[in-house]
Structure formats: C-alpha cells, structure tokens
C-alpha cells in the first residue's frame, strides 16, 4: 500500500502560484483568529487563541517565511475579532516573534521538543499579557485563575496544530 499522500507529487515544470505560497499561511492564521465568530456564548475564556497557535506553528515550521513585522497586521486582525483592546495582540505577537528570533540565534540544536518549549513560553507570555491588558483597560479585577486553564490547553493543543500546519504546508509547496 502506497501512502496516499505520495499520490500528490509535484509535476515536472509546474510550480505553485505565488499567492498560494505566500497567502496560505496568512489566511490560515486569519481563519484561526476568525474562530471567535463561532456561535458560542462563552461564560469564561474557553476557546484557545487559535490565531496565535497557528502563527507560532508557521513561524517554527518555516523560519524563513515571515519577517517579524508580520505580527502587526495579523495581530490587528486578531484584536478586531477577539474582543481584547486594540493593540494588545499587535504588541504581544510582535514581541513574541522578535523573542523567537532572538532565541533561534542562540540555540545550536533544536528539535520538536524545543519547538514546543518555545511555543509554550510564547503562549504563556501572550495569554498573560492579554490578561494584563484586559485588566488595565477597564476589565476590573479579572483573576488570573480564569485564564490559567486556557493557557494549559493551548499549550497541549500546540502539537496537534503544528501537525495540521505541516500538512497544509505540504499541499502549499506542491503544485
């Protein structure tokens, strides 16, 4: 039995379009941010920030894909969808991406586990930063224990999301 994925091979002389190469990752991150439009009326922060998860997955899978400023437009879109104050994700995502760049220059050996660790730190930074911003911009006394469960399952969900991104990536680069 041949692996079904192998049926889909690049044909000689054909290349994926530029839109597919550059647009796919951006569109997937925006879809992740868009998931808050699901008709769930949540009583607490239950939905993991899928936009952030997909952004981190692409960044760690394909370091050469984006420059760090990509956090600005994608963060703005996430802010518009998420209900956080505008500017929150712009700041947190860009700082997280710069941080990942900084770490990458210092790590000699890296594998899947280190990627997960980097993503976990970035997720903790972004969710607690979002919690802090919600608190200071009129949110009153939101307790930290409200976002802690969200943080845990976002970190646990990272391996799954990174797999899906790898799958999409395979489709992306094959014509």
């Amino acid at each position: 039995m041949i692996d079904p994925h192998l049926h889909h091979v690049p044909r000689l002389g054909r290349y994926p379009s530029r839109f597919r190469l550059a647009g796919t990752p951006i569109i997937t991150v925006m879809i992740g941010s868009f998931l808050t439009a699901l008709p769930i009326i949540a009583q607490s922060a239950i939905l993991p920030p899928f936009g952030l998860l997909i952004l981190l997955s692409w960044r760690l899978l394909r370091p050469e894909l984006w420059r760090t400023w990509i956090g600005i437009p994608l963060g703005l879109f996430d802010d518009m969808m998420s209900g956080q104050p505008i500017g929150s994700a712009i700041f947190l995502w860009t700082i997280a991406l710069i941080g990942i760049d900084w770490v990458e220059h210092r790590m000699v050996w890296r594998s899947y586990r280190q990627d997960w660790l980097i993503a976990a730190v970035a997720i903790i930074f972004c969710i607690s930063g979002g919690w802090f911003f919600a608190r200071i911009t009129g949110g009153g006394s939101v307790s930290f224990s409200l976002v802690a469960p969200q943080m845990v399952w976002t970190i646990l969900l990272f391996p799954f999301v990174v797999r899906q991104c790898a799958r999409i990536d395979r489709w992306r680069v094959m014509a």
Partner: protein
Amino acid sequence: MARPPSRRPGINRRAQYSLFASYVVALVGAAIGLLLVVVAIFDPTGFAALRVAAAEVSRPASVTMKGMVSGVSSIDEVLAAYWQAGSQNVGLRRQVEADRNRIIESKAIAQENLRLKKLLKLVDEDSSDLLTARLIASSASSARRFARLNAGAWQGVRPGMPVRAPEGLIGRIHITTPNSADVLLLTDTSNIVPVRRASDNIPAISTGLGDGSVEIRALTAGRNPFKPGDLLVTSGIGGVYQPNIPVAVVVRAEGEIAYGVPLANPARVDAVVVERVFEEAVTRPGPSAPAVAAGAEAEASGGNAAAP
C-alpha cells in the same frame, strides 16, 4: 535536527539592511500597539470604528452558523418525540381538552381586566422595548466577557442600552456598529449593576466575576444579610436598568461578599430584548426631554452603570 537555515544574511550589505529595517518596523509596530492599549486605558470604547469592518464581515457567518447550531441541537428533541408516540398522543389530547376550558376562562378574565383598566383610566404604555435580536458570537478566547448581538446602530441600538431575556438581565450594550453590537455581559468583571433583594428591598451591588457568576456586596452596614436562595432584581437606581428585572440568585455567602448565579444564561436564551435606557424611557415625553435623554445616554455609555 540541526538548526534551521539561518536568517543572518552573511556579507550581503543590502540583505543586512533589509533585515535590520524589518526589526525596526516590528519594534515600531509593537510600540504603536502598546500605545493603543494605553489609549484604551483611558477610553475603553475608543477605536470602535476599527472593529466595524471585522464585525460586519463576521456577522453573516455567525448568523448562518447560529442557524445551523439551533437546527442540530433540536435533533434529539425530534427523536425523543417518536419514543412512546402513541401514549403521548393520548395524553396530549386530554391535555388539550383540559386547556381549552382554561383558555376560555382566561379570555374572559382578560376582557374583564381591560374593562376595569378603562374604568380606572389607566393606559398601559410600556414602550421601553426597542427590539428583539439574537446573540450570535462572543469573545470566547479573551478574559473579557462580550457577546455580539445581531442588531446595531441602524436598528436603533445605542451604547448603554440594557439587554434582557425573559429569564432575566443579560447585560448592557458596549459598542455598536451598523448591523451588530457588542453586549457587555452581566458576568464581565467591569459590569456593575445596582440590585435589591426581591423580598425586602435590601440594596446591593452586583459585579461580574468573569467566570459565569457574580459577586454581590450589600450596601447596608453590618454583617452580610444574604443567604443562599435569595433572589435579586434590578433596583432601577442609576437610571440605566428598569426596576424589577430578575438578575441573579445567591448561591453562597462568605464574609462580606455573597456569590450569585445569573438567572439568564446567555448561551441558552434564544432571543434577547434590547430596552431603552430606563431614564430615557421615563422622561421621554415633553419638550425638554431630548437634552435629558442625551445626557443620560452619554453617562451610561461613558462609565459603568452608575452606582447608587
């Protein structure tokens, strides 16, 4: 795995500058983001215009999905109806016979009521309801509790208007866009509602806790008067909410604070009613009313519900 391809551009000057410029752009962008957050500290509803585009784009998607979800969630009811259909049919027929008499009785009572009201020259003029709409989405990934309403400024919804369901209070309009509005739910940590105990008028303040429950602080001196099972309704103080909308039921009392659960669950209610700001609805008639109403609305949208 060895390290991924390095982003260091080597000796290529141009590539070095380009990389450096990208970091500068990113840092400037991050600083602007931080600045926007700082602005939001002083003006939480600012930049609402930025959300307009997103809200308007996502609204059709949310409405469609909401319709699908309602359809799917009622499948089990349809299946359950087939179970014991015969005996249920007989039972329902008897019920209908019994109900018919009651309907005739209640019609007579309604007529009598109308007659008595005319006698008293009492005209029922409750025009506080503005419209009925559905909640279509929410800020499920954020620590704040907002829900999106499928009606907006073009339908007459204004910031500060109370939102309620038949079961009780849902919250208050926070931001409006042309066709949708963000509702600050009762359980949001910044939503403060003046309430009273339904049985004996003890005034209190309800503040959301962000986890689906509310915190209730009595305004009377002395020890905490609340005990589990107490029903709380809006007091009408502050002029935003009408009096006597059910708010929450107390489930636990600890020291000075009592904890309550809202009576209306925004995830369960089918449709919600947007009402006019109470003060506006009361003081509407008369030539000087518009100024008063505008003042009340500005107050309601500017800060939290005024504490009594």
